[in-house]
């Protein structure tokens, strides 16, 4: 029969353990940066698209980084997130 059993993990224990886990996990990597997105996710290409290119984008971080896109990028590249400065 399916009678009530005392759960091995109560709701309170479950929520507390989850909260502690989250805090510990984040604390371990407190200095990590925001996770950026892979290049293929934003249709990155190493060449410009018309006049639009990374060095002219609001998200460009000289000399070869982007606020959103992971890894080094080309200043003359382009992706779908392009936004002129």
């Amino acid at each position, binding site marked *: *029969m*399916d*009678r*009530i059993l005392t*759960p091995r*993990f109560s*709701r309170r224990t*479950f*929520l507390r353990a*989850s909260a502690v*886990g*989250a*805090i510990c*996990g*984040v604390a*371990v*990597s*407190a200095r*990590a*940066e*925001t*996770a*950026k*997105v*892979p290049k*293929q*996710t*934003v*249709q990155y290409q190493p060449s410009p698209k018309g006049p639009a290119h990374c060095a002219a984008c*609001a*998200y460009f971080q000289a000399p070869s980084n982007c*606020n*959103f896109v*992971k890894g080094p990028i080309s200043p003359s590249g382009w992706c*779908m*997130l392009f*936004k002129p400065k």
Partner: protein
Amino acid sequence: MGNSPNRRVAPLCDARTAKLIAGGSSLGVAVIAVGAMMVARSASAVPAFAQQTGQPCKSCHVGGFGPELTPFGREFKLGGYTLRAHASVPLAAMAITSLTHTRKDQNQPPEHLNRNDNVVLDEAAVFLAGGMGNHFGGFAEVTYDGVDRHFSWDNLDVRAVTKAKIFGADSILGLSVNNNPTIQDAWNTLPGWGFPFTDTNVSPTPDAAPLIDDSLAQNVLGVSAYAWIGHKGYLEVGGYSSPARGTLNALGADPFDPGSIRGIAPYGRIAFQTELGGGTFEVGASALKTALFPGRDRSSGLADHHTDLGLDTSWQKPIGSNSFTANLRYEHERADLRASCALGLIGEDADPACGRYDLNELRATGRYTLHDRLGFALSAFDISGSRNSNVFDGNGLPDSNGLMGQVDYTFWPDGKGPLGPLVNARVGIQYTLYGRFNGARHNFDGAGANAVDNNALRFFTWIAF
């Protein structure tokens, strides 16, 4: 980005359903609960996220409006909503209104409404939404239900994330605290964010649906841990429990509907995403196992059991400035409503098959969007399962199937509207055609009603800012 709360309206109320309600169980039988309350589903883009990222709606959403996510939108969500271009105000709002016409007037329209041609404010919602630092983000939604005429908490998804190397690949580890199983998912195949994105509870919808189809929305609270491995593989495990009765009352949710979870209900999800055919392909599976005390009634010492197993796949392909998406989901549910039988809510307790049934649900949707503005969608749905006259009205079969078509237009997907970059709007027409309804094509209720009588035409407007 949020789903509306489930809305409870008068069901096709037979004696058994009346008994459930009168007995205070408030639809402890989940499958009846779904049908009885006619789940309304809607969701939206959150302009606060657009302000945070500096990106227009179309960067994160297919068709330039929520909730269907692009690959970038999925990354934003799985990254804990933390990507940021500059400081922002973490507030947003949306409103949906509609006119619904059913082929035949309803015998028992929802309270406050006419038998046909109802114009309603489906919902108005405000969001607190944004990222905080590099590790925390989320959204919380409060909604006014214009049909039920009350406020309640709506979808909640608060995350903690961090970067990690897994098998040498750049990955994300995260935790999500949420109140609706599948609302944390990043693909639009599962119920939380699945098509039609917006619908109404004004018109009748099929009674039977698996428990995972929004029945637990806003009546549970859960935590899940996930790993987004190499931005290709997704693994998630978590569990849900029921908040206290007083808490749910204070939040505007019905604590008795469908009941309270015994212990923790485990939830699991696995998915794989890759580039395929010039688009983004995903295949995955999900599982939810629950033991529910119907109407929070523990007196029988038994619980109603549901095991939901799902398979899903999607493909999203940009075609110039247009896009095509296909979503497919199959769900199987095995249920045994032992508590409902023991409590005398359904059937005869002595019958071992009293509350047992199987459900199969199949949903397939294709959508083509022109220039992120004009969208055409066609969706087919089929619900079938074993006969159980204790659980299902009419002939005892849960079977329903049909088609839904939608044409919609989004005004400012690029954030260049006359009201500013944070205002966007969509209008659309939906038509739902039923082949079978609650077990039959003809006379499904024993009173002469046919499935096509519930065919519904709906015009909607949807604004987010």
